[in-house]
C-alpha cells in the first residue's frame, strides 16, 4: 500500500498505516547506509529543492544526504544570498523555482502553515522540515523509529517529552505520532511552557521531573531554544537546569534505566548534563543516523508515487 497523501505536512491526522509504512521502509534504507556504496539509483532524474528559510544544520544536511543517496538532483536554497533579500515575495520565489521543473520541495520556514500554502501554489510533493511552532514531522518519525529500534515497539510505551512544549514543533509532531502508534504520552516542563488545553490531545501533564523519570520508559528532551526568547519563561537558566535538567544524579536517584532522546543541538548543562548526553542511556547520535534513513524512506515513498 502506498502512502495516503502525496505530501508530508505534519503528523496530525496521518493514519497509523502510513506511519507504519514509513517506519518499516526506513529499515531498508538503514541497511543501505551500512553498505560500502551508500547509494541507490531509485530517484534518478528527480529534482528536489531544499528550501530553508530558517537556519538548520542537522535537518538540512540529513535531507541533502538522503536525497543524494537516492540519486536525486538537489538544489539548496537558503535565504541569505538569495533574491529574497532583493524583496522577492515567497510566492514569486516558488513560482520561479517551480518553472525550472522540480519534483519535490523540502521546506523549513518560521511561519506555521508555509508547507500547506506551498501545496496550493505548486504541483511538487512537499515535505515539511519544520514550520514555526507547528510541526516537524520527519524529526518525530525518526524519534519513533529510534525508540522502536531500541525497545522493539511503540504500542503501550510510556514516553515523556520534556522542556518547552509551547514553542516546540518537535513536541507537537511527537505527540501526534506517538499517540497514533499507541504510546502513552506525557509532557513535563515549567508551567509557563505548557500550552493551555494541551491535555485535549490526550497527553498527561507532569510538573515534577522526578515523577516523569519514575513513570516513563522514554524521555525525549527538548532543547531550550534560547534564540526564541526562552529566557522570558523562567527566571534563570540555572533555575531551569536545577528543576528540569536531566543529570546523572537525577537518573541514579530514581534508579531507572530510561531511554533518552534529544533532537539536538544540545545545550550541555542546561536541559541535559554532559554525562547524560554522552552516557549509556542516550541514543542521540543513533537518532542522527536514523534520520537519514527515515528521510530516505519518506522521499522514496513520496517520490515514487504515481
Amino acid at each position, binding site marked *: 500500500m502506498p502512502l495516503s497523501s502525496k505530501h508530508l505536512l505534519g503528523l496530525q491526522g496521518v493514519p497509523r498505516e502510513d506511519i507504519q509504512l514509513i517506519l518499516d*521502509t526506513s529499515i*531498508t534504507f538503514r541497511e543501505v547506509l551500512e553498505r*560500502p556504496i551508500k*547509494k*541507490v*539509483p*531509485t530517484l534518478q532524474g528527480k529534482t528536489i529543492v531544499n528550501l530553508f528559510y530558517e537556519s538548520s544544520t542537522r535537518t538540512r544536511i540529513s535531507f541533502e544526504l538522503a536525497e543524494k543517496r537516492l540519486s536525486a538532483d538537489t538544489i539548496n536554497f537558503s535565504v541569505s544570498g538569495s533574491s529574497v533579500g532583493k524583496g522577492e515575495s515567497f510566492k514569486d520565489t516558488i513560482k520561479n523555482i517551480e518553472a525550472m521543473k522540480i519534483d519535490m520541495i523540502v521546506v523549513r520556514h518560521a511561519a506555521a502553515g508555509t508547507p500547506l500554502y506551498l501545496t496550493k501554489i505548486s504541483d511538487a510533493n512537499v515535505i515539511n522540515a519544520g514550520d514555526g511552532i507547528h510541526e516537524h514531522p520527519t524529526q518525530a518519525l525518526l524519534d519513533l523509529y529510534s525508540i522502536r529500534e531500541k525497545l522493539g515497539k511503540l504500542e503501550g510505551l510510556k514516553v515523556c517529552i520534556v522542556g518547552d512544549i509551547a514553542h516546540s514543533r518537535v513536541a507537537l509532531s511527537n505527540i501526534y505520532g506517538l499517540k497514533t502508534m499507541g504510546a502513552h504520552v506525557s509532557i513535563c516542563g515549567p508551567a509557563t511552557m505548557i500550552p493551555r488545553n494541551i491535555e485535549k490531545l490526550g497527553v498527561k501533564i507532569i510538573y515534577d521531573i522526578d515523577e516523569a523519570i519514575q513513570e516513563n520508559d522514554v524521555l525525549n528532551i527538548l532543547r531550550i531554544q534560547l534564540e526564541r526568547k526562552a529566557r522570558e519563561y523562567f527566571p534563570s537558566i540555572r533555575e531551569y537546569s536545577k528543576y528540569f535538567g536531566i543529570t546523572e544524579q537525577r537518573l541514579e536517584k530514581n534508579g531507572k534505566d530510561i531511554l533518552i532522546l534529544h533532537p539536538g543541538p544540545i545545550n550541555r548543562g542546561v536541559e541535559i548534563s554532559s554525562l547524560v548526553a554522552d552516557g549509556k542511556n542516550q541514543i542521540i547520535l543513533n537518532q542522527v543516523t536514523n534520520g537519514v534513513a527515515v528521510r530516505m524512506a519518506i522521499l522514496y*515513498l513520496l517520490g515514487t508515487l*504515481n
Partner: protein
Amino acid sequence: MNIKSKPVDSEGFDRLLTRIAHEILEKNKGSKNLVLIGMRTRGEFLAKRIQQKIKQIENIDLPLGVLDVTLYRDDFRTRLKQPEVSVSNITFDINERDIILVDDVLYTGRTVRAALNALMDFGRPGTIQLFILVDRGHRALPIRADYVGKNIPTSIDEEIKVKVKEIDGEDAIYLLESENKNN
C-alpha cells in the same frame, strides 16, 4: 489464473536442485571461493536448498546472502502500484568472490539487470553466475543463465509459478494461463 500443467513436482524439484548443485561444483572446480546470493522472495529459499545440497556433497557451509532489488528497478515511473521494499542482507565481503545469484524465474531479464547493479554496490565480485530455476523465454535484455533448472517455453499469456515448501507449502513448478489476456 487457471493451472494448465505442473511440469515439475516435488520429487523432480529436488532432483533438479541436486543436479544444479553438482553443476555449480563442477564448473567452479569445488566450492572454495563460492558464495550464494538469493533474490527475494523465492530465490532466497532456492539458495538455501543449494546451500544444503553443497553441504551434503562437500561438507562445507557456503556463505548465503539475500538481495532485495526493489531500489534498483527501472519501472518506478510506469507501474501503477508502488513496489514494497524489503531489506538486503549480505553480511560477508563479496570482493573477488564467485557469486551464484539465485532466482526462481527468468523472463525479461530486467530483475537480473537490477540485481547486477545492486551487487556492484556491495563490492567487486570475481564472477557472478546466474542460477535460474525456470527459464520461460521472452528476454528483453541480453542476459542468460549459467545454470538452468528447466526450460519451459511459454507464450506471453502464460505465467510460471514456482512454489517452495517454506512459504507455499509445497515444492512445485506450475504453468498458469493468465485470465486477462490483454494484460
